[in-house]
């Protein structure tokens, strides 16, 4: 496109590949499955990434690493964009550019089924251990809102939910969609607590991150997102990812 001042799109098209960075332990956004004996990283984010690649006419390559290192990876040109359920916080906006939002986050507290009605207020969580993934918005929500609780941070979400299921943690702050998936998968094990967590405005929208210099790419990505939203495919893809996780997460 003529308006772009940089050659970020051209570079990708020359390479014939766009590399997306993600941290595939965050179903249904991104998670590994085995299909026909082949490992694949799938999920809502990956479906969107594919559409972007299609639109650019290039192949999609997925780099799977730890969530906390994704932004470093992007800055070091190891990847071209991040789709990892990443929320566009003020802090992050200082270092990377974000696309328009493709998902709005609501955070909830995932608890054991037996505690479904135990934690109704912030006060009821006083002195309890609450888990949140390190360097995520959930960590800051837990730390800022659940006053009086002890926040435990670890790098992998699953290790937190494993602890929850064993009673080591009273609850884990997770994104609504993930909580839903846990409930669907293990209806007898988990529940969402009644306690209200507010998700601050700047921590609500999930976006795609690119380098600040890659303005042309960002423009292209926003175009794709608008199209997917308008033709209703976005919602379908989320469903599709949930179904996949239900199927493979057994």
């Amino acid at each position: 496109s003529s308006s772009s001042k940089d050659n970020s799109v051209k570079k990708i098209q020359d390479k014939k590949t766009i590399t997306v960075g993600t941290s595939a332990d965050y179903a249904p956004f991104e998670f590994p499955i085995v299909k026909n004996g082949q490992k694949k990283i799938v999920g809502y984010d990956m479906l969107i990434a594919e559409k972007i690649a299609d639109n650019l006419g290039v192949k999609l390559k997925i780099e799977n690493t730890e969530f906390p290192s994704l932004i470093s990876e992007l800055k070091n040109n190891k990847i071209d964009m991040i789709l990892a359920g990443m929320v566009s916080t003020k802090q992050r906006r200082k270092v990377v550019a974000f696309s328009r939002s493709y998902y709005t986050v609501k955070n909830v507290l995932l608890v054991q089924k037996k505690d479904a009605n135990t934690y109704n207020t912030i006060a009821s969580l006083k002195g309890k251990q609450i888990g949140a993934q390190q360097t995520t918005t959930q960590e800051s929500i837990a730390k800022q809102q659940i006053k009086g609780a002890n926040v435990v941070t670890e790098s992998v979400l699953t290790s937190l939910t494993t602890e929850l299921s064993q009673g080591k943690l009273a609850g884990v702050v997770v994104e609504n969609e993930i909580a839903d998936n846990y409930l669907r998968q293990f209806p007898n094990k988990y529940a969402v607590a009644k306690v209200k967590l507010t998700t601050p405005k700047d921590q609500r929208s999930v976006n795609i991150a690119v380098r600040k210099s890659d303005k042309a790419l960002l423009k292209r990505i926003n175009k794709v997102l608008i199209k997917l939203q308008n033709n209703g495919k976005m919602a379908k893809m989320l469903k599709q990812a949930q179904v996949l996780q239900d199927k493979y997460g057994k």
Partner: protein
Amino acid sequence: MFGFMKQYYPVFLEGTAQTIIISIIGILIGILLGLLFVMMRLSKLKVFEYLARVYIAIVRGTPSMIQVMLIYYTLSKVISVPQVQFLGSGLDRVIPGSIALGINSGAYTAEIFRSGIISISRGQTEAGLSLGLSEKTTMFSIVLPQAVRNILPALGNEFISLIKESSVLFYIGVQEVTAQALGVGGTLYNFVPPLIVAASIYFVLTFLLSQLMQFIEKKMGRKYIQSN
């Protein structure tokens, strides 16, 4: 590059204290388990020897990260520790975590003890026995004191690697120095400077430990190795 330290140094201090504490607990438990398992390993009862061999083989054959997580999940079902906060982490994590470190270290310590015992020539045991001393007295008063002296360098190395391995406790939510560095790195969106700080802290800790070990070695040795 390290300007962030002005703001974040308390986090690193807390993490360092946590690392020191879990390492000390881990080392102590490792020594106790090491003694127990080396006795089992050298025991004439085949069951004991077998159990000790299996323990040592499993610990040495699998990554400590996985061990710590599995031990932590198991231990936390068995022992109950009050959820008191301590240097930014619950004691119910710090304690099983350090025990897990100790269980890991015990296997290595047992092997070090064994090499030390083997290094003391059979002649020392025979001299003890031929004086009519019991096998236990010979082991504890004649062989072990010499063995400990011989294995001090190896023990020092094991303690140093325990300090470094203690960073795996970050997987079970213990906020030791690596966890803190990664947290700060995540906030800064740049891991390199906080990791360099963490590495320097480990370097200082392990350096101090190795100086301490050398001091002990000299002190134990001075008595009886006099060049004539």
